């Protein structure tokens, strides 16, 4: 039986591992290569690594760190952050990255998704949608670490990028990010019911029950955890941790 994927979503900024709350106030968590080494030891099924400064601060793709990260891993890695061209993607896949996540580049130009999917396969191309409620209470997709508002609906964009050839959507709730308050199930359900490709829930996981709810109540195909993977608990210190295989299996029976 295919297992429900549970994976750590790690955030990198200028070479350091950080954690944000609602996409703001990045706190230093540690060294990304070291953290990945620990998750590899814990045998996580898959790992997502997003460089949150690559686009918004213009720091670009840190190929050096990524090479070290891949060298530590015997599981698939999805990398996102600052990827704008098929050439960059080719270079990343050659390093051993399994999947690449596009965000602002895909939203600005969905034909990039099509070109990438044609060359590398749909399943290797993920698109991340960072979503926040605007002052009218409506969900809109943001870019540049939440600083820019595309003013477009996540449902409309999800359909567009699925049609363009994306293999998966990483749906990241900015409002829930780092809050330990649970996933935004309404947002998840709205997007997962509109597309046929897998939707990965991200932003807000605070307990094992939240992971179950994302799948059963939100229709997510996979779940990503951030704070839960790097802190002992809400408002507590750094600890790299992950639910055991048994815990994961019993959650999704």
């Amino acid at each position, binding site marked *: 039986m295919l297992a429900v994927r549970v994976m750590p979503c790690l955030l990198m900024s200028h070479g350091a591992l950080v954690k944000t709350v609602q996409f703001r106030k990045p706190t230093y968590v540690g060294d990304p290569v070291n953290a990945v080494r620990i998750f*590899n030891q814990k045998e996580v099924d898959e790992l997502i690594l997003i460089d949150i400064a690559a686009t918004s601060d213009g720091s670009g793709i840190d190929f050096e760190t990524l090479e070290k990260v*891949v060298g530590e891993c*015997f599981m698939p890695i999805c990398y996102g952050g600052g990827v704008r061209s098929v050439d960059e993607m080719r270079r990343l896949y050659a390093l*051993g990255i*399994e999947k690449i996540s596009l965000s602002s580049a895909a939203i600005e130009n969905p034909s990039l998704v099509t070109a990438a999917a044609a060359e590398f396969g749909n*399943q290797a191309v993920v698109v991340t949608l960072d979503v926040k409620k605007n002052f009218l209470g409506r969900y809109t997709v943001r870019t540049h670490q939440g600083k820019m508002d595309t003013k477009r609906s996540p449902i409309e964009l999800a359909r567009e990028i699925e049609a363009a050839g994306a293999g998966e959507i990483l749906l990241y709730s900015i409002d829930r990010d780092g809050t330990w308050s649970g996933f935004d199930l309404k947002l998840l359900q709205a997007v997962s019911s509109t597309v046929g490709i*897998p939707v990965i829930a991200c932003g807000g996981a605070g307990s094992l029950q939240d992971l179950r709810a994302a799948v059963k109540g939100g229709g997510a*195909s996979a779940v990503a955890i951030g704070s839960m993977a790097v802190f002992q608990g809400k408002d507590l210190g750094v600890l790299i941790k992950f639910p055991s295989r048994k815990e994961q299996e019993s959650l999704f029976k």
Partner: protein
Amino acid sequence: MKEMIHVVDYGAGNIGSVLNMIKRVGGTACASGSADELARASRLLLPGVGSFDNAVQKLERLGLIDVLREQAHAGTPLLGICLGMQLLSEGSEEGSLPGLGLVPGRVRRFAFGLADAALKIPHMGWNQVRVRKTHPLVSGLGEDARFYFVHSYHYQCADETDILLETTYGYPFPSGIQRGNVMGVQFHPEKSHRYGMQLIKNFVEM
């Protein structure tokens, strides 16, 4: 017996992770796209990512189709991974070019009936394998053995006795095959932690 493993480098996918894993389990490996070098290898690993015809063309261009067939007939242990396993077939529904034809059978796309219509293609993620026959390549793989899969096409063996491992995704399909010295696995051992390491270690020590 720890022979040097030659990983066939024909431009179809990343081989770094495979080389890494072989070294991690105590083997020695090198990558090569040279027909001369591969013709003299004592152990071969054929990786592969991408489309069938594209891979066959790349192998053809390097003169490797004949080399791989000759090596297989000479008794050299050959392990195909993912698309590399599919290349061992007579051909694939994905393309129109012939495969290496080393393990009888063809490759077809996953096709589900109404009952499994919700199953997505590709088969992507971690799934379990059942060992169908005893063989050094799969020794030590327990009941909980699981591997990372990502594929839209799967093997259909003409000879059931060639099935080494079986996995269910909608229906059972061969996730591992073996015929004499030629072996193949559909999953990515280099992305499957301890289970992948066990398998690669077995190949190293065969």
